[in-house]
Every structure is written in structure tokens, then in C-alpha cells.
């Protein structure tokens, strides 16, 4: 599609009513595939290639068989009480424990819901400032990983199953030998780590083995430490304060994107954003679309290799910039001048250290250090060296004993390092991990690692405060913690898991303080104090334009990160925010590159970087920088579980040893295609003004783009008087950053199954809550909008009219109820639903799950069988729990005491739920606001779920 065509199409879209948005390039091109998705909730139903007679025969047969299937006896389940019941345990009431799930060295504080001794779900820890009760999608998935049937279940030696005793004996032998040599040749390889117990143990190891070296490796994270040394002369953690700064500039830095900083950053950003002024002003220059870019006031799509030029220009140099870049830089400079002392800037972690250092110095100069940007000691401890040094030492034969703890270097190491091959040269290699992965297969010893929810450990959160990890269940597969394994080297093999952690804290926490720390999920007074810094003079950044041609940038996958979540079906099936692709990693290319190479979505392309080649399926990503190709980690796995293996391509093959955007890459079409599955058109709503945008202080009514106003709520029937409670939800589109935490929260709370790639391809994903992504403007640099869509619980619900068996009815409190035991699966309700929020169980997904996975199901929610419809219930189990608790004491349910799962998880608190009959409830006040609008309100459905329009400052970000 050339530029004129694009303009024509945009004009056409605009004429179709109001501000017109598009969901994907298919809709932009209008190639007919959209109509199919618009017309039906389950388009695949039309694809049955049967004649009328055959169809009737099959229908008759299935009717007969389904009748018979109802005749089976119900399973007998015995009642199994405790032998000795714990004193504070009450059968039927979940217990909550505070702990944390480490992620790239940072603690994600959680509260674990435990039913009858098994953790079923994770919530954020309200008392922890790094969570405030909210939680990321990754942290929630920990519970699915715990019960993953593919987890490593035994100690293996050279691939054969053996015992912990055999390993303890072998390690003891090695330890004896090492002691004589002072630990020469002993190497430890970990991921990023902040655990005080691990640090204490490493220090103890150094005492026994002075020549030991500790390496750490993570494919993401980059050169922050080097950069802070350059800028301030010491390693630091730099935190831009999104809650305080008025202008935030991001140079390829995905501040709001997935990762350990997402929740704290989103909390801070939303705190300022919630004031309704559309602040902070966010300027983003980036090569590949991110969540931060989607929230930007002014976003510039430019190559990663050109970020140094932008940084140099912002610092006052005059590098050669193209007009778009120059305009962006000018706009940033104007905003910074207009907001003196209140601007921050940051560069992406994979930018060169001097560029990052320059941005840190600029942030110091532009802002108010200590207020708009704070500095603390680094939370993640610095190791002796990285992976490249380890590889070199192995090559030189200097490594005798290598302990790899919770890392997977054979998979995640940069391809040119050839780590998987050289690993075989280590005489005594030990790998401890939760999965039997690529490294496990190439190490002599593989040890099953206890899951964080089975472990005693400790870890620091983003603010440096320590959370003690406590086990919620005994290790399912006799796994040991990292600390127990290091105990083995310190002459204490096979010691219990608690002792090493308790030892660390014995002098600081007496028994009562220890218990309180466990209860609160936070050890008091361990957060790092802000430090004062002095910027050092910096040499000017070499602002040389990168060589022309294609550049390749590497990003962790938004769903499976560096590959550690690859066996998590929840995350595999989570549509990636930008592409909405599931169960795959696409090669992201720009629309311009797509035109040039004549590739379409799914066409296999070959990328060549420094002589190394890789094949992957292209995905044309609106907003991608013209000459940038983005490769995502986490796929192309050869080991690591049923779901992980054989999906996508392995981006690590091309990852350079020195992390930096690779310029001078070549990309070409191969002619092959591979079907990528994206949900961007699924459940497409047919209507106008699905997302709305207003200026600060403005309401929907006087916004120019409003075509459909609030219709009078008319009906032939008398209106039902909702006495008592009237539940409703308001979703603030201005706060939604599209992080997907709510989608996973809903899935975990409501026992929603994952269905697999083939089923998603035909539109059968089961998510009760989806996030619709809309583009606005031209494909090369569009605005992006996110809109979470649960059931609208229409007061005038079309679905209820369709059901022949009254399986979907209305509650006296206004909830659109779905009754699984009545449903016979005609799917009429789904075809009547204009919002397309109903999901049908085409298969018996619940029964096909491995028995171990049943353990994390919520016992408060029915597990649905095949052939029934389901959808969002407003977390009715929570509403009923609140009702019962209140009724027991004959009092009213107080505002805020019912929180839905999605609302609880949301890091920006974009979702509000409550009683609309109470004019003072939070949800009523939001609904009364002028930004409130109902989706498809012209259809007279009277939705109980409404939205608040996004706020955009007119002229904001203009120079």
C-alpha cells in the first residue's frame, strides 16, 4: 500500500464516523478479512464443510451422545481432615502469606492465596511500596510455573537419574580438592542477584576459596552499572520519578514496559496521571513500539543507532538530524525549558554506556536531583565478571568447577560465544534450575531447584527493601534452594532450607521481628536511602550517524521475557501488547520495510548479522522505525518443556557479545510462510467511537469527535428498580498502559483455560477480559490506544434474549449471570453480544490439563466443562463472599470491600468496581465524571461497565 492509498483509506475511515481508529493493517488495507471477524464472534463456525443432511445426522448423533454423557455417576471425593490441624486454619477459608517472587534479581512482593495448603493464586502486597497491592503478569504466572508438570523432577548425572546423596558426595570430593588449591578454578554463575543470604554465602565461599570467581549473566539489563560509573563515578541505581517530573523523556527506554520496574514505574506514573491533566508530558524516541511509546505525547520512531545523535542534540551539540528528529528534539527542548527543574531523561539499557551516562547527566541538570530523579546504591549486586569472561576462561582451561544457579547460558548466551559447546570442556559442571533446559542437557550434573514458592530465601525489591521468601508448600520434587546448594560447598550438605536464611538475619532480627517481617512481607528499615551524587564532566558523545542500512535490535519478549516463562501457557497465550501475536515471536519490521521487501505478516525472512543467519516470520508493526528489525528473545527453544519447545526463532543466535544495536544487517524474503497467530482482529467490535479522546478538563459531550451521545435510556418495558446494590465498573482508558496484568489476574482467579495456538487461530481464545488495541493515524507513526474489555453486564442485555434455556439471566443487582449447569451450548448468546465478550468451551479444556495443574484452580469458581458458554462474572465469587460476610453481621457491604481480580492486579488502578446505587462510592463518582462513556451506547444496552475517555493535551509536545 503506497502513501496515497494510505491517505485515501484514512480519509475513508474518518468519514465512517467520528474519530476512526483501526485495529491492524488488515483493517487499514480493508482486504476483507476484517469483515469476517466483525460479522461473527466465532467465524470458524462457518467453515464446517458439511452438507445439510450430514450436518443434521451429526447433530442427532451428538444430541444422543450428549444425553448419555450426562448419565455418568459423579466422582466420589472423600473428606480428608488434618491429623493435627494448624491452630489458625479454618477449612474453606483461604490463608494468605506474604512472600516475593524474584525477577531478574528484584523481589516482586506478593501475597499468596493458599487453599488447604496449596498456593492457588498471587496478589500484590498492599503493605509494600513496590506493589501497593498490584502485581505484574509475570509475577502472577509464578503459580502456574510451580505446578508445571514439565518441571525438573530429579537429580541427573550425565543425563541419567541419580540421587541427592550421590551429588552431595561428589561435591564434597570436589570441595576437598578445591580447598587445597584455594578455590582455583571454582566459578559461580548466577543471574542478577540481590539476595542478602546469597551475598553472605558468596562472601563465606570467598573465605574458604579465595580464588573463586562469581560471574553473573542476564541477556537483558545491559550497561547501567558502567554508565553510572561514567556519570557519577560510582555504581548507582537511577530512578526517574514519574510521579514528580513534569517532563519525561525516554530514548529507547521502555520505562512502563514489562520487567522488574514495570509495577513501581506504573504506580508512580499513574499517581501523576490520575490528576486528570494528562501529565507527565512523555516524549519517547524509540525504534520499536513499546508500552511507553503508546503512552507518549510525542513519539518519534527512529533507529536505535540514531539515539546517540538525539542524546547529543539534547545536550547542546549539533549532530546531523533529519527533519522529524530535529522537530522532536526541538519539542523536547521547549518542554524542558517551559518546565525548569522538572524534567527527567533516560536512555535504554542496551544503549552504549556513554549515551546512558550523558542522559543521566542531563537528567541531573534538567531536574531536581533527589526529587525528579533519585539515586540509591545498586540493588542488584555487582559480580566479579560476566559471561564473556567466563567463556574465555573455560576456553583457556581455567575453570575446573562451574556452578550454574538458576541460569540457562546454553540457551540465552549470545550465539557468537558458542557457550553451549564450550560448556562440555568444564570438568565438573553443575546446573540447578527449575526446568531441564538446554544447559541441563549439557551439564554433568543437573539439580532440580526449588520454586520460589517452595523456598526459604530473601530478595531485595526495587527500593532495596528485603522481603523474606517463605515456602507455601513443601518442594514438589525434592528440589533444593540455591542457598542449600551453596551450603554443600560450605561443608553443610543437605542442611534444611530455612537455616541459611535465618543465619543471615539472626543478628538483625530476633524471633518476634523475624515473624513480623514474614507477616508483613518486608524487613523494616532495609530500603536503601537516597544518596547525593556529583556528576562528573563527560566527554561529548561521539554523535556519528550510524552506517545506513538495516539495524537489528534485541528485546525481551513481552510475554515470555528471556525464555524463562516459555513453558507457561498463560503467558504464551497472552497477546503481546504491540503485535497481539500469541504462541510465537515475530520478526518486527516497519510498514516501509514490508513494502520494500514485499513481505506480509507471516512471511519468513532471513536476517544476517556478521555472517550469522536466522529465519523468522515477519510481522509488520505500525510505528516501527523504518530500517529497524526487532528480534525478541525467549523462543526457538530446543528444551524447556512441552510448550516452550519448537516455537518461533532463537534470537540469541544473532545476539552480539557486546550488547548494542547491530547495524549493517541484511534482511531478505525467503518465499516461505509460517502462520503467525495474532488476536488483533479477534472479537472486533462493529461500531463507532470505541475509544474516545478528550482534552484535560473537557468532557465527552463537547468533544468534537463525539458522534454518538448518550441516548435516552428507552425501553418498552418498565425499568427494573435496582434496590440494594447495583454493581458496576468504570475503566479509565487514560490510565491503562496495556500491561496485561488484568488479563492474567482474571485467568488465574476464574480458572480460565489456555487453548493453544490452533484454537486461538480460529478465534477461540478463552480470556474473559481482553485488551483491545487501536491505532490512530498513519501506519508509520500511529497513536496507540488500549482498552480492556470485560463483560459489559448490560442492563438491557441482548444475550439474555437469545438463550433458549435461561442459562444467562439478570441478577437483581444488575449482574448478567451465566449458569453453566443450565447451558446447553447453542451459542446464541454469543452471536447476540455486540461486545463479543462471551467464550465457548469447544473442548473439555479443563479435563485435558495435567492433574498437577488442577492444584492451582480456584476452588471458589466452577471449572467449566465442554459445550458451555462462559464470560466475565464481575468476580461473583468475591461479591458473594462480601455479601455473606456482611449478612452474617447484618451490615452493608462497604465501598471498596469487593475488588475484582483485574482491579486488584492493575498497577495503575485503571479499574474501579463498586455499587452504583451509592452515590458516594468510588465507581459512582467516576461514572458521574464528564469523561464517562459507554461502549456502543447507541445500541441501548445500558452497559454497567463504562469507560473514561483518554486525555490528550492538545498541542502538547508541539514545538
Amino acid at each position, binding site marked *: 500500500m503506497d502513501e496515497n492509498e494510505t491517505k485515501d483509506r484514512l480519509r475513508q475511515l474518518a468519514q465512517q464516523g467520528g474519530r476512526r481508529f483501526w485495529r491492524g493493517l488488515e483493517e487499514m488495507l480493508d482486504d476483507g478479512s476484517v469483515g469476517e471477524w466483525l460479522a461473527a464472534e466465532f467465524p470458524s463456525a462457518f467453515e464446517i464443510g458439511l452438507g445439510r443432511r450430514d450436518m443434521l445426522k451429526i447433530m442427532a448423533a451428538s444430541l444422543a451422545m450428549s444425553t448419555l454423557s450426562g448419565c455418568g455417576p459423579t466422582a466420589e471425593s472423600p473428606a480428608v481432615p488434618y491429623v493435627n490441624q494448624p491452630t489458625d486454619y479454618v*477449612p474453606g477459608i483461604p490463608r494468605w502469606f506474604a512472600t516475593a517472587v524474584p525477577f531478574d534479581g528484584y523481589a516482586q512482593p506478593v501475597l499468596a492465596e493458599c487453599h488447604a495448603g496449596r498456593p492457588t493464586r498471587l496478589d500484590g502486597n498492599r503493605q509494600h511500596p513496590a506493589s501497593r497491592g498490584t502485581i505484574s503478569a509475570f509475577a502472577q504466572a509464578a503459580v502456574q510455573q510451580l505446578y508445571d508438570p514439565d518441571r525438573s523432577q530429579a537429580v541427573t548425572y550425565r543425563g541419567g537419574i541419580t540421587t541427592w546423596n550421590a551429588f552431595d558426595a561428589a561435591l564434597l570430593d570436589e570441595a576437598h580438592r578445591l580447598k587445597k588449591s584455594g578455590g582455583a578454578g571454582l566459578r559461580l554463575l548466577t543471574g542478577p542477584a540481590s539476595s542478602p543470604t546469597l551475598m553472605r554465602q558468596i562472601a563465606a565461599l570467598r573465605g574458604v576459596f579465595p580464588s573463586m570467581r562469581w560471574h553473573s549473566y542476564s541477556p537483558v539489563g545491559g550497561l547501567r552499572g558502567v554508565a553510572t560509573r561514567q556519570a557519577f563515578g560510582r555504581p548507582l541505581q537511577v530512578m526517574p520519578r514519574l510521579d514528580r517530573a513534569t517532563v519525561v523523556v525516554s530514548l529507547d527506554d521502555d520505562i512502563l514496559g514489562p520487567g522488574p520496574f514495570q509495577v513501581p514505574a506504573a504506580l508512580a506514573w499513574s499517581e501523576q496521571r490520575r490528576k486528570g491533566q494528562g501529565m507527565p508530558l512523555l516524549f519517547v524516541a524509540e525504534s520499536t513500539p513499546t508500552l511507553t511509546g503508546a503512552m507518549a505525547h510525542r513519539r518519534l520512531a527512529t533507529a536505535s543507532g540514531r539515539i546517540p545523535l538525539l542524546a547529543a542534540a539534547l545536550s547542546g551539540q549539533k549532530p546531523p538530524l533529519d527533519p522529524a528528529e530535529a522537530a522532536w528534539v526541538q519539542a523536547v527542548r521547549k518542554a524542558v525549558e517551559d518546565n525548569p527543574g522538572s524534567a527527567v531523561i533516560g536512555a535504554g539499557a542496551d544503549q552504549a554506556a556513554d549515551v546512558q551516562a550523558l542522559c543521566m547527566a542531563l537528567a541531573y541538570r534538567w531536574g531536581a536531583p533527589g526529587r525528579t530523579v533519585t539515586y540509591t546504591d545498586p540493588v542488584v549486586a555487582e559480580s566479579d565478571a560476566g559471561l564473556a569472561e567466563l567463556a574465555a576462561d573455560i576456553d583457556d582451561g581455567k575453570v575446573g568447577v562451574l556452578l550454574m544457579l538458576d541460569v540457562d547460558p546454553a540457551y540465552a548466551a549470545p550465539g557468537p560465544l558458542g557457550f553451549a559447546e564450550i560448556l562440555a570442556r568444564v570438568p565438573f559442571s553443575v546446573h540447578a534450575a527449575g526446568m531441564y533446559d538446554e544447559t541441563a542437557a549439557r551439564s554433568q550434573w543437573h539439580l532440580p531447584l526449588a520454586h520460589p514458592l517452595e523456598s526459604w530465601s530473601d530478595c531485595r525489591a526495587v527500593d532495596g527493601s528485603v522481603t523474606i521468601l517463605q515456602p507455601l508448600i513443601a518442594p514438589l520434587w525434592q528440589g533444593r534452594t540455591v542457598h542449600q546448594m551453596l551450603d554443600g560447598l560450605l561443608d553443610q550438605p543437605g542442611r534444611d532450607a530455612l537455616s541459611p536464611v535465618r543465619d543471615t538475619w539472626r543478628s538483625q532480627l530476633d524471633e518476634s521481628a523475624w515473624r513480623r517481617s514474614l507477616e508483613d512481607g518486608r524487613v523494616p528499615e532495609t530500603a536503601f536511602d537516597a544518596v547525593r551524587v556529583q556528576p562528573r564532566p563527560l566527554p561529548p558523545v561521539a554523535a556519528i550517524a550510524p552506517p545506513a542500512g538495516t539495524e537489528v535490535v534485541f528485546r525481551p519478549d513481552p510475554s515470555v521475557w528471556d525464555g524463562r516463562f516459555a513453558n507457561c501457557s498463560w503467558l504464551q497465550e497472552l497477546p503481546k501488547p504491540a503485535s497481539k501475536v500469541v504462541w510465537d515471536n515475530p520478526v518486527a519490521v516497519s510498514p516501509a520495510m514490508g513494502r520494500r521487501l514485499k513481505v506480509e505478516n507471516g512471511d519468513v525472512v532471513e536476517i544476517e548479522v556478521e555472517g550469522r543467519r536466522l529465519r523468522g516470520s515477519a510481522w509488520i508493526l505500525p510505528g516501527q522505525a523504518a530500517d529497524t528489525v526487532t528480534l525478541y528473545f525467549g523462543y526457538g527453544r530446543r528444551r524447556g518443556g512441552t510448550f516452550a519447545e519448537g516455537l518461533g526463532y532463537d534470537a540469541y543466535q544473532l545476539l552480539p557479545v557486546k550488547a548494542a544495536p547491530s547495524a549493517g544487517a541484511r534482511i531478505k524474503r525467503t518465499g516461505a510462510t509460517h502462520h503467525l497467530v495474532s488476536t488483533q482482529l479477534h472479537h472486533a467490535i462493529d461500531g463507532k467511537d470505541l475509544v474516545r479522546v478528550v482534552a484535560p478538563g473537557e468532557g465527552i459531550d463537547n468533544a468534537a469527535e463525539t458522534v454518538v451521545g448518550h441516548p435516552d435510556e428507552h425501553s418498552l418495558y418498565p425499568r427494573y428498580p435496582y434496590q440494594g446494590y447495583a454493581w458496576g465498573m468504570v475503566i479509565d482508558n487514560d490510565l491503562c498502559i496495556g500491561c496485561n496484568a488484568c488479563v492474567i489476574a482474571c485467568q488465574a482467579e476464574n480458572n480460565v483455560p489456555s487453548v493453544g495456538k490452533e484454537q486461538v487461530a480460529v478465534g477461540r481464545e478463552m480470556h474473559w477480559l481482553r485488551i483491545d488495541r487501536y491505532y490512530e493515524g498513519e501506519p508509520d507513526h500511529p497513536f496507540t490506544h488500549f482498552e480492556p474489555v470485560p463483560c459489559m453486564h448490560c442492563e438491557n442485555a441482548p444475550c439474555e434474549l437469545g438463550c433458549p434455556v435461561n442459562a444467562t439471566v439478570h441478577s437483581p443487582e444488575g449482574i448478567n449471570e451465566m449458569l453453566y449447569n443450565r447451558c446447553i451450548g447453542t451459542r446464541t448468546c454469543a452471536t447476540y453480544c455486540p461486545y463479543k465478550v462471551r467464550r465457548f468451551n469447544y473442548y473439555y479444556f479443563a479435563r485435558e490439563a495435567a492433574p498437577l495443574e488442577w492444584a492451582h484452580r480456584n476452588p471458589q469458581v466452577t471449572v467449566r466443562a465442554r459445550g458451555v458458554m462462559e464470560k466475565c462474572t464481575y468476580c461473583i465469587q468475591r461479591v458473594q463472599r462480601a455479601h455473606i460476610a456482611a*449478612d452474617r453481621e447484618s451490615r452493608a457491604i462497604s465501598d471498596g470491600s469487593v475488588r475484582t481480580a483485574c482491579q486488584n492486579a492493575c498497577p495503575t488502578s485503571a479499574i474501579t468496581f463498586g455499587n452504583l446505587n451509592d452515590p458516594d462510592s468510588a465507581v459512582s463518582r467516576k461514572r458521574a465524571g464528564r469523561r464517562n462513556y459507554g461502549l456502543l451506547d447507541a445500541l441501548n444496552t445500558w452497559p454497567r461497565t463504562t469507560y473514561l475517555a483518554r486525555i490528550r493535551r492538545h498541542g502538547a509536545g508541539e514545538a
Partner: protein
Amino acid sequence: MAQIFSPSADTWLRLALAGVTLAIIVAIAFLIGFVTSDYRTNVDFHPAQPVPFSHRHHVGGLGLDCRYCHASVEVSADAGFPPTHTCMTCHSQLYTDAAMLAPVRDSLANDKPLHWARVAKLPDYVYFDHSIHIAKGVGCSTCHGQVQRMPLTYTANALTMGFCIACHRDPAPYLRANEAEVFDMTWKPAPNQRAVGQQRMIERGIAGRNITDCYTCHR
């Protein structure tokens, strides 16, 4: 041309039609009878238990309170089964050698829980909550029957949806005065039960609540 139908054909046709109609009626009647039968609803069913526990002895004879063993009935959806430890509070002193109690002793000695067969069973899609029923004055015996007379525990009432909803539609005849009455297994409705029951509904806020909504029990 010869007659196709004999003179009796009409009679046979009528008989056949009547027979089919009768068969359908009988089949429906049988099905209804079957699904509501004690056989199908497990009424009077005495499942085999690891220990032949007698409520008649413990409740009727010794007068133990329900909550001594079913401790969470007032605060949780589950009434709770007694942990082995609860049995052994008495049986470490009484009948310490009884062969009948060997499984209980083994359970404590080996830290292996007892597996009791459920007597009152509900389908998985029904979310019954004991605590709210107790709080509103529905007594144990209303559903569980005269447990104090059961040497082996059995299902006294067919716990069908009809049984539940009869009371949810009209709770007045079943509401008891106070805690003592709720746990009184011999409770009899008062002579003016309907009047006092309706008064109790107003006092306890049941009157204003719609408790026949589907999501009250299903979710």
C-alpha cells in the same frame, strides 16, 4: 383393485397411537420418578466409613455439641471435619484398645489423615455456605435430619435444588430463635412458626435480600 387395509387396520392404528402415547407418558413418569427417587438422591444411604462413627452415641448419648467436631460451621462455608487430634482428645483416655478405633490411632501415629466418605453431597457447581445459614437461624437438623439418632450417618434429605429453593423461597417455617435452637437437634417449629419466622426474616435482613437469584448458590 383389492383393499390395501384390512377392516381391523383402523383399530390397530388407534391402538398403536395409544400405545406410543402411553409409552411416552410411562417413560417420562419413570424418569421423573427415578431422578427424584431415594436411590438417585442417596437418601437413606449409609456409606462405608473407615471407623463406624456413631452420632447416636456421641450426640444423642453423650450430648456433644456439633461444633466440638465441626468447628468452622459458624465462620466458614465448610463445617469442617474433625482432625484426628480431636478424636484422640477423648480416645487417648477412653476405649484406648478398641479394635474399632485402630484406624484413628494409626492415623495419629503415622501422621496419615483419615479418609471419610461424604454423606451430605452437593454437586461442584453449588456453593453452599454453612456460616450464613447458621447466622440466619437455619438449624443443623433442617437439612441433616435427626443426626443424634443415627448409629451410622446417612443422608436424611434429598439435597436437590428443589429442597434448597423451597426454603429460599419461603424461609419463615425454618428459622429458629437463637443459637441454642440452631444446634438443637430436636427442635420443633413453634405453633405460630409462620408469624415468628416472618418476624425473624425482617430482624435478620433476610426479607430484603433476593436469595432465589441463581448466583446466590451457583457461580
